[in-house]
């Protein structure tokens, strides 16, 4: 169908605790091509952990195990920490949830973007500056020169998130992992940020992993959706067919949402079946 950028096979994330080992992610497999892949689930379902594990950002005592996490056939699990630094940012980038916590509050936006750029490229300051301005314009920031001089607290949430995306895109990664990139934003701004990400994915042929708890948003924005529950993938479906999803968990989540077009006195309450968390993970791999 399409060329595979990332192949994750049998991924486990474990945290040892006093009560025994806690499995945050349990045997997840999926592939990512040049597409927008959504991962949805409740808090604690392991969706963010999956994103972090791909970049090997889980620190001891956390344990990551996988048959393979292959980026273009290159197994990331076998790489040394030094080699991973060349992957992070360069090949796979990540956008975090809240720009307030991801930007350095005492550095100007410009200085941070230039620093990120020069980390990966040997250039002089003037070139880096020009590149940074160009990137800010690519994410629809109008007066880029002013923003370069501004500090993070002078930005609104939407602007901050766009700056984060600009910073992630400078090294021209093949894969962007967006962990709830719009949860901290208002609906009107949310749309703008999504449009920018969408445009970039299409133009540059990137693969996007979009982690979110918002089913409607994912159905609208992504191509394919993985639904996670208790560290496993319970269902994989086309985003456009999410409303016809079959698994009772997905159905339960969809029915729990209030809808403007179908008013009801009471919302349906999700009845959890203990069998969901023991059933083996569904594979999200495309052969």
């Amino acid at each position, binding site marked *: 169908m399409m060329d595979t950028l990332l192949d994750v096979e049998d991924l486990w994330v474990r945290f040892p605790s006093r009560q025994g080992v806690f499995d945050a992610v349990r045997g997840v497999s999926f592939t990512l091509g040049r597409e927008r892949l959504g991962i949805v689930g409740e808090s604690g379902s392991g969706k963010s952990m999956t994103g972090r594990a791909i970049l090997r950002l889980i620190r001891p005592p956390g344990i990551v195990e996988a048959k393979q996490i292959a980026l273009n056939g290159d197994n990331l699990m076998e790489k040394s920490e030094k080699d991973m630094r060349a992957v992070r940012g360069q090949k796979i980038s990540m956008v975090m949830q809240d720009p307030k916590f991801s930007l350095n509050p005492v550095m100007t936006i410009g200085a941070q973007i230039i620093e990120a750029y020069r980390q990966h490229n040997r250039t002089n300051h003037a070139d880096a500056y020009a590149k940074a301005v160009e990137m800010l314009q690519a994410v629809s920031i109008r007066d880029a020169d002013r923003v370069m001089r501004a500090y993070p607290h002078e930005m609104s949430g939407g602007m901050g998130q766009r700056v984060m995306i600009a910073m992630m895109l400078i090294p021209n990664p093949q894969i962007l992992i967006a962990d709830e990139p719009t949860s901290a934003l208002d609906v009107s701004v949310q749309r703008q940020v999504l449009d920018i990400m969408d445009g970039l994915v299409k133009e540059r042929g990137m693969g996007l992993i979009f982690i979110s708890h918002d089913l409607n948003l994912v159905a609208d924005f992504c191509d394919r959706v993985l639904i996670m529950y208790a560290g496993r993938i319970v269902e994989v479906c086309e985003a456009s067919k999410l409303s016809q999803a079959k698994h009772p968990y997905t159905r339960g989540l969809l029915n*729990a949402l209030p809808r403007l077009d179908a008013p009801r006195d009471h919302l349906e309450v999700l009845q959890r079946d203990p069998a969901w968390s023991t059933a083996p993970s569904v594979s999200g791999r495309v052969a």
Partner: protein
Amino acid sequence: MMLDIDTLNVWFGSGRDRVDAVKAATFSVARGESFGLVGESGSGKSTILRAISGLAPQWSGRMVVDGTPLTKTRPKAFYKAVQMVFQDPYASLHPRHSVDQVLGETLHLHGFGDIDARVVKLLDDVGLGQKFRFRYPHQLSGGQRQRVAIARALAPEPQLLLLDEPTSALDVSVQGEILNLLVDLRRDRGLTFVMVSHDLSVVGHMCERLAVMQNGQIVEVLGVDALRQNAATHPYAQSLLAASI
């Protein structure tokens, strides 16, 4: 009328740093009605709730709750009649007080005698039950914590409940449970709700009428039927609707 707000202005700071958070807001809520406030962050919707409950000290205009005009200092009866539920249940409960202490202290402050029986009743009313009575907030899930916060707000038997984004910190499945609880409580106790949310579908589910706010001003008040038929007239209200569907 349970609540009547007339040309309410709320501001923070003074002189050069003065920020007008709410400008000439006017609306009224009938007894037993559920009224929604929607808008972007920074539009002043939460500030209106804080002004009603007495948490925003600098305001002008007229606010009438159940026929009594509000002054800068509020009588004790006011705090019995008006209660608020906050957005983040993680932040609004004392981390070192058990559920029993939280509810018991509230009941004591409001001068109730039969505290023990009332704590039992409150926990049953919010669907928690007795096994949660001696737990601490960190031993509860987000939804359970919000139930405790609702129980605390119900303790003085209020008539008007101010809900500031009561479910935005919760998962969709838990959001459904809390919204159902609020619907039931309103019906059983004849409560009046003023609810702030950025989620139009939640407001559409819970409220009969809503006000759309932008930059501290109410730009439109519309019924929920108009919301469902996408019949907003103000351009900003229209764009907000379009972005949410």
